[in-house]
């Protein structure tokens, strides 16, 4: 009887010692697994599947099954249970089958088994705390914005509902990479600056539109006169009227047409081509400016800006650097058409691969010159010379300085699709803008 009772007590001691060891192993393995999980989660790295947490049980099982040095562990257990060395004495009496001593030792032996676990139970606390952290959402890892985002020159303000914008990853990239209007300038319209560069003086949008309309009339009349002059060369009336019209045109057109109609060396065909191109460019510019005034909605087409909250906002074609496949195909098609259809407009020799690059300094030929100023330009762009890095400014040869608005002129001179135009614009922006 006493022998069985003693054996039962010692058996319980063995079991609880193993259980305690397993508990400690489980706490440690769970803590480290959860810690690793949290670290991976914070760094945005791929997480291991939840089933992996089941691996935390393996050390616990091993710890439970691993042989126990009971002869020493019983001393520790006896002290922890506040029994002194009673349990080892019980084990010694049991080993000698001394029932007299067993009975005496079992008389008042009432161990409180919870004492074996009390401090160790708190070892689970760190693991539980980490578990609790898992329930809390972590902030999204910050990705440092590219240097481009420091550029304040904004060509477009993306609007529309967030769900449309985030519909595709390319849209998200568009949203990320498209320069935006500086804060506080959401109502900014680029066209006054654009047209101010075109006419060489600052004016409001309405005034600019009026001037465009006037110029259009003048150019149409000039086209008629040139048509008559080609049939009747040397007519003084026509020459006088042409001179009057030229004096009213904006400086760049005036210069180009004056060269084409130099006395004694008139090239009426070239002059007509210049006027035709100018008319086309004017109508495009007029249309876009009027569109910015009128329209408030509409989808973001390729190379065109997004919606604008403020009416009159120009949806500057932005032409993201990274275009999706459809846009790239469209752009290639337009480029090929431009290359084939216009001897002057493409800017490259026929057959030459399309490439963005620094445009050569040359006289404007034939194509309408539409000076444009990048929206968002202000005092910070004053004096910035566009050019390839490393080139020494001031040298006459091998280096040229292009004011930003002339970049626009050059870009619009060629019938480039808006996407490619934006690409080149961004290229020059990277070279000089905001750095």
């Amino acid at each position, binding site marked *: 009887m006493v022998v069985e009772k003693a054996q039962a007590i010692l058996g319980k001691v063995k079991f609880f010692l193993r259980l305690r060891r397993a508990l400690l192993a489980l706490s440690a393995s769970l803590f480290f697994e959860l810690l690793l999980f949290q670290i991976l989660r914070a760094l945005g790295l791929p997480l291991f599947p939840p089933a992996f947490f089941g691996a935390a049980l393996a050390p616990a099982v091993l710890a439970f099954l691993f042989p126990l040095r009971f002869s020493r562990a019983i001393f520790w257990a006896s002290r922890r249970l506040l029994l002194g060395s009673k349990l080892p*004495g019980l084990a010694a009496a049991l080993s000698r089958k001394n029932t007299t001593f067993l009975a005496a030792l079992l008389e008042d032996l009432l161990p409180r088994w919870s004492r074996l676990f009390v401090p160790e139970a708190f070892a689970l606390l760190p693991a539980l705390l980490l578990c609790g952290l898992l329930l809390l959402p972590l902030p999204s890892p910050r990705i440092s914005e590219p240097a481009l985002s420091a550029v304040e020159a904004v060509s477009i303000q993306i609007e529309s509902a967030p769900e449309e914008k985030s519909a595709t990853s390319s849209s998200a990239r568009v949203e990320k990479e498209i320069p935006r209007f500086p804060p506080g300038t959401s109502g900014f319209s680029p066209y006054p600056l654009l047209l101010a560069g075109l006419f060489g003086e600052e004016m409001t949008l309405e005034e600019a539109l009026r001037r465009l309309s006037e110029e259009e009339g003048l150019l149409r009349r000039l086209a008629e006169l040139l048509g008559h002059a080609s049939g009747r060369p040397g007519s003084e009336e026509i020459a006088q009227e042409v001179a009057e019209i030229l004096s009213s045109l904006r400086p760049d057109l005036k210069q180009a047409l004056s060269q084409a109609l130099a006395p004694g060396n008139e090239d009426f065909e070239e002059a007509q081509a210049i006027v035709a191109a100018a008319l086309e460019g004017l109508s495009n510019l007029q249309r876009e400016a009027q569109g910015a005034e009128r329209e408030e909605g509409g989808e973001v087409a390729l190379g065109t800006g997004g919606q604008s909250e403020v009416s009159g906002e120009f949806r500057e074609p932005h032409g993201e650097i990274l275009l999706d496949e459809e846009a790239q195909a469209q752009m290639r098609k337009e480029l090929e058409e431009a290359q084939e259809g216009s001897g002057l407009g493409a800017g490259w020799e026929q057959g030459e691969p399309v490439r963005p690059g620094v445009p050569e300094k040359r006289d404007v030929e034939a194509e309408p010159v539409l000076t444009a100023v990048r929206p968002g330009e202000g005092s910070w762009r004053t004096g910035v010379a566009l050019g390839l890095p490393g080139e020494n400014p001031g040298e006459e040869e091998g280096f040229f300085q292009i004011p930003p608005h002339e970049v626009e002129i050059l870009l619009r001179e060629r019938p480039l699709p808006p996407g490619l135009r934006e690409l080149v614009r961004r290229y020059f922006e990277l070279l000089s803008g905001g750095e």
Partner: protein
Amino acid sequence: MERKDIDRAQEALAALESAISTVIVGQKDVIEVVLWALLSRGHVLLEGVPGLGKTLLVRALSRALGLSFSRIQCTPDLMPADILGTNVFSEDGFRFLPGPIFANVVLADEINRATPKTQSALLEAMQERQATVGNVTHALPDPFILLATQNPIEMEGTYPLPEAQVDRFLFKAEVRYPEEKELVEIIRRNTEGEGLVLPEPVLTREEVLLCQRVVREFPVHEEFLSYVAKLVLATHPGARSAPPAVQKYVLYGASPRGGLALVLGAKARAFLSGRFHLELEDIQRAFRPALIHRLILNFRAEAEGVTPWQVLQEVWEAVPPP
């Protein structure tokens, strides 16, 4: 052995301790060690200056046990036959006349005054519990306990006990000088009234033998035995576990009898405390009386004034308990 026997034995021992304390003032440690020796079937070497009550203690013990008592006053002219006995010729032939060694409780006073030859006569009695006289071996009575006293200050004309004989004493009890309060009580008891009165017997011989049997059967865990063995081995200068003090000052360490003494003393203490299991404290209390007389220190220790107890303290600290 039944539980009631054990309970009876424990009660009797408590009464014995109390009875001795009525005669001996203070000296609780010494009384404890003597009782350990009694329960362990061992012998005790009492070391102390004269007049501290060593002889009185033994007399009170023997009286309280109701056992026979004899005293041997060792002198340089003491012969072995004076201790063991001798054969005398009588009308019926030679008759063995037993010596004072044939008693339950024997006091060998100032044993270091006896010659080595006489001292060696006690060896067989202490170890074998028998005495050989001539070619006849005579068994000593049971229980048998030898308490020898030794004066640590008078070394002239003395014969220090050989290590072999010292090793046969299970414990060595150091009788200290009484404190003021104790001394006042001693003086009062011995100068007033009828003087000292020895206690009445509180134990029978059978009860003493029962107590001794209980202590022998007292269970001790293997880890405790291992711990005691490590302690004994650590007293040897060549052992890996020996602390620096042992390697520096000890010539010879404790013999295996030291381990026996340690375990028996711990068991006896546990039993006297009313427990049925051994505690580390029991081993700790028995450590000094069990081993203090078994270390042989070298000349360097003597020159530097290092005592055996200082070395033993380092041994205790060096060996981790279970």
